[in-house]
């Protein structure tokens, strides 16, 4: 089968990336997810400690 350069790149790129991923240390997905959830929680706690006057609106605008 003859492949164009683009087809070859599309075929090979994921394989290359997957091979490199496989070389990563095998950190358990569950541990990663728990760590990410912990960061969300820690961020929330940090933000909860910030005093904001009631009149301060979020930094985005709704335009009618």
């Amino acid at each position, binding site marked *: 089968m003859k492949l164009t350069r683009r087809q070859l790149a*599309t075929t090979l*790129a994921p394989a290359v*990336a997957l091979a490199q991923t496989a*070389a990563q240390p095998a950190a358990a997905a569950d541990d990663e997810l728990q760590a990410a959830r912990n*960061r969300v929680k820690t961020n*929330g706690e940090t933000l909860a400690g910030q005093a904001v006057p009631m009149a301060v609106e*979020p*930094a985005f605008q709704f335009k009618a």
Partner: protein
Amino acid sequence: MAAPGNDVFFATAAELNARLIKKEFSAEELARAFAQRLEQLGPRYNALALSLKEQALRKARAVDKDIKREHLHGPLQGVPYAVKDLLSYGGQPTTWGAKPYASQVFDHSATVIEKLDAVGAVITGKLSMVELAGGGGYRFPSASLFGPGLNPWDRTRWSGGSSSGSAAAVAAGLAPFAIGSETSGSIVTPAAFCGVTALRPTYGLVSRHGAMALSWTLDKLGPFARSAEECGLILQVIAGKDGKDAGSAGRSFYYTPQYARPLAELRIGFAAADFADRPDAAARPAFAAALDSLKACGVQLVEARLPAFPYGALLSAILGAEQASIFEPLISSGRVDELADQSQIAGLKASLEIPAKDYLKAMRVRRLLQEAIQLMWGELDVVVAPARPGIAPKVDQPLSPPPGAAASANRETTPRSAPAGFGAVIPAGNLAGLPALVLPCGFADNMPVALQLVGPPWSENTLLAVGKDFQSRTDWHKRKPPDA
């Protein structure tokens, strides 16, 4: 007409355009030379996402006809360039650097590509990037459909993220300029690691229509180029109102160095600790010398620091909540597991769990942050800090510790607590929508390091004026990698 020689690969856009107008070579010949070089050498740095050689040659032939008729469109006419694969190009794959989108094709091109096309610039290809611009937080440089971005100065080191290919391509002479994007650090970091001048514009100045959305309130597009002046010329073309981008500020930009304020009037804030203590030891001499070069420009250097805010937590909450909404279909479908980096996958999944109250609180604190930084601009015109405190890391090393090893975020620029001085200027500048100019300023261990200048919204001309003067006194931006 002679074929372009190797000297074109590190010439500026303005120089190339002048040679085209003088008919030293044709736009078609120039496009062919750059497109071939991108095809041949792009994979060497994992920088090439997609060659657009045939489209480039077609466009260049049209440009040649325009030049022949003396229909001239400015200094980018006939100049090749490439874009981060986060931008759509009609009818061709746009992968966002991520396997789940490897076969994605849009029927329209991004506004910045249309604007560059209108002045006769010639797109030669699309460039690699960290998957989904790294919003989930990635642990390894290999977090990309294209493999880890390899640094032209040392291919055992990372080219930075998430605009990895944009910085590497300009550094290696694969394109005279490139377009990248920044949500928080994705222009500044790769530009610093690869020794390339780059500009992050004020939020809303450049349309993001046709670009992948990661965070509606943080995303920006900007140029990587050979000098501050080139960044100004490119920004003039890509800036402007666009009804297709809800975040468009409706402003244009005109690069007007002739109207720049005298540099002696400028008060530039800096923190001595940012230059003397915070950088890696090997980089400190380069940063100290860079500060001296800046002083030689005649500006007033004033000791200062950022107002105290939890920049990392703010950025994480805002970016996380916005990306969760944007990529909810990917995450909920389970296809998120096809991404290359486990930390990125976990970060995206966890972002779905950010409470609305946290996002809204972060956006309200962001308002206070904007006001505090606005007050700072009453005392200062610009701030300066190292773009990154050290050189590019090794490509096979993790960018952050594994789970449990340390309670720190792995997003590239989100320290948990604000370091003294301007150490948090990347998240702070992005949260406040501020422009930044990255200026290569020396070497450490044979790798480039860079300064970043940050100013108030819409102060691009001031930053560019300082950058232009700095670059008239130094030649770091002209250095090229030994084997490029």
